């Protein structure tokens, strides 16, 4: 019996913007428990008194010199796009109708 239900996997897949086939949903709902095991293990020692580390070598306020640098040529970038028009990316409609 898996802890994370098929419906929950479908909900998260929608958040992740990945269309899953029914058989993929079946398989994944059996495989996501690994994360529940991971959290159970980690919780044994992740107590409130332990500070979190986000990066191995802490650095703050990393800036470069405020000197303009050329961006990539527009035509080079658009050459790799699935669709382009008038020097811009061409994308499907952004807002759904309803």
């Amino acid at each position, binding site marked *: 019996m898996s802890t*994370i239900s098929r419906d*929950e*996997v479908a909900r*998260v*897949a*929608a*958040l*992740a*913007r*990945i*269309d*899953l*086939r029914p058989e*993929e949903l079946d398989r*994944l709902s059996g*495989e*996501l428990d*690994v*994360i529940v*095991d*991971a*959290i*159970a*293990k*980690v*919780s*044994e*020692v*992740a*107590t409130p008194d*332990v*500070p*979190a*580390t*986000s*990066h*191995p*070598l802490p*650095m703050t306020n*990393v800036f*470069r010199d405020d000197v303009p640098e050329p961006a*990539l*040529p527009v035509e*080079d*970038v658009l*050459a*790799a*796009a*699935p*669709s382009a028009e008038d020097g811009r*990316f061409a*994308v*499907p*409609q*952004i*807002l*759904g*109708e309803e």
Partner: protein
Amino acid sequence: MTQDLTRLSASELADGLAAGEFTSVDATQAHLDRIAAVDGAVNAFLHVNADEALATARSVDERRAAGESLHRLAGVPIAVKDVVVTKGMPTTAGSKILEGWIPPYDATLVERIRAAGLPILGKTNMDEFAMGSSTEHSAFGNTRNPWDLDRIPGGSGGGSAAAVAAFEAPLAIGTDTGGSIRQPGAVTGTVGVKPTYGGVSRYGLIAMASSLDQAGPVTRTVLDSALLHELIGGYDPRDSTSIPGRAPALVDAAVQGAGGDLTGLRVGVVKELSGEGYQEGVSARFAQSLDLLRGLGAEVVEVSCPHFEYALGAYYLIMPSEASSNLAKFDGMRFGLRVEPEEGPVTAERVMAATRGAGFGDEVKRRVILGTYALSAGYYDAYYGSAQKVRTLIQRDFAAAFEQADVLVSPTAPTTAFRFGEKLDDPLAMYLNDVATIPANLAGVPGMSVPSGLSDDGLPVGFQILAPAKADDRMYRVGAALESALLSTWGGPLLDRAPALPTATTELEG
């Protein structure tokens, strides 16, 4: 020409080029011929860049003939893992979603390789987006281990390791998020180095987990890794996590280590990275290497890192979380695949979902969904936050251990190369491959895998050396010392014992 240039190390090639014994065109063509002969069997390359490589070689030969002062590795060919972007050369990261994509720019490490005049032979195969330990998750077929073509070459950088082990390239670039340079090195009998986090620029790497990813060298000798590491390493203003200031001298450390004197050096054996789960032959080779290090004057002590057993759990919270965020850019809008939904309105959101459903492989979907779950509302603190606390504990373990020892050591991987399919349906068994390599990524410390002999099954075993952050030179010193001691016991390189590969010509004759 009687000499087989593909059998030379990178430093030997560099010396021969400098002495005028052969040209870069000779060396590059020899490797391209070798690729043509054996890569049908090995499948280490996703793209072979023959014309450009030969053009670079010709240009280096001309510059050398004109008396120009060149980088030591100028003219020595190299292979690059397909997760590193290369201008004008296809870059897929092993994924269908990027099939046919030609990046408009070079990664910083590629810029440095080009500036130094190394011909780029091509791009190597890998698990899709570097997610895996066997290269079985590539969308473009398995890479086979040159030691046994029925077995995995490790992963995610199986292509780079196999290319170097099969003498298709003297040098290759890998990336290591949880062991993807070191574990393939171990199972193919090659050297692989994960530098200190921030030691090599990540600019132009297709990111999996940004706080863990690190690029590094894949070679057949420790000295070659040092040469390549010095070339690609160093500060890069385009990577905000790049370490400012001068990096330690690695080639010098490797040369010093090869001298064979480790008197006064303390080697710490990590108690938690041995015993249960480690194949007998792996443990035996590990013990033999420890004896050799003692013989060179090192003092071997046992150290305990009690939180390493939590590393795997923390890794499988942090890595998918960061991956799910990094892979959000594959939305079908600006590069790569675009797939429209079969029915219903064609909106950007639905195109993105259809594109990712069609373009991502099983393991990528798995990890992105795991990461999305871990980062979703209500879970973030308990999941990602808790895992980050374990990182602190692991860093403290390392700090305490490095009080007692100058370097830490363990077997690189618990077993030798397994057969295709053996662990494909059991993600946890696959993940356990990386149990000894993951702590270094979580803490940001450097790690190296050096071939330490063959196990009972005749397959290579790796010896892992870990050093404190920014002290990468230490592992080069120890690695070179161990390598040279092992070479004396073997009477030659370990790879000389690998079986001959079937070649395209012999297949035709047969």
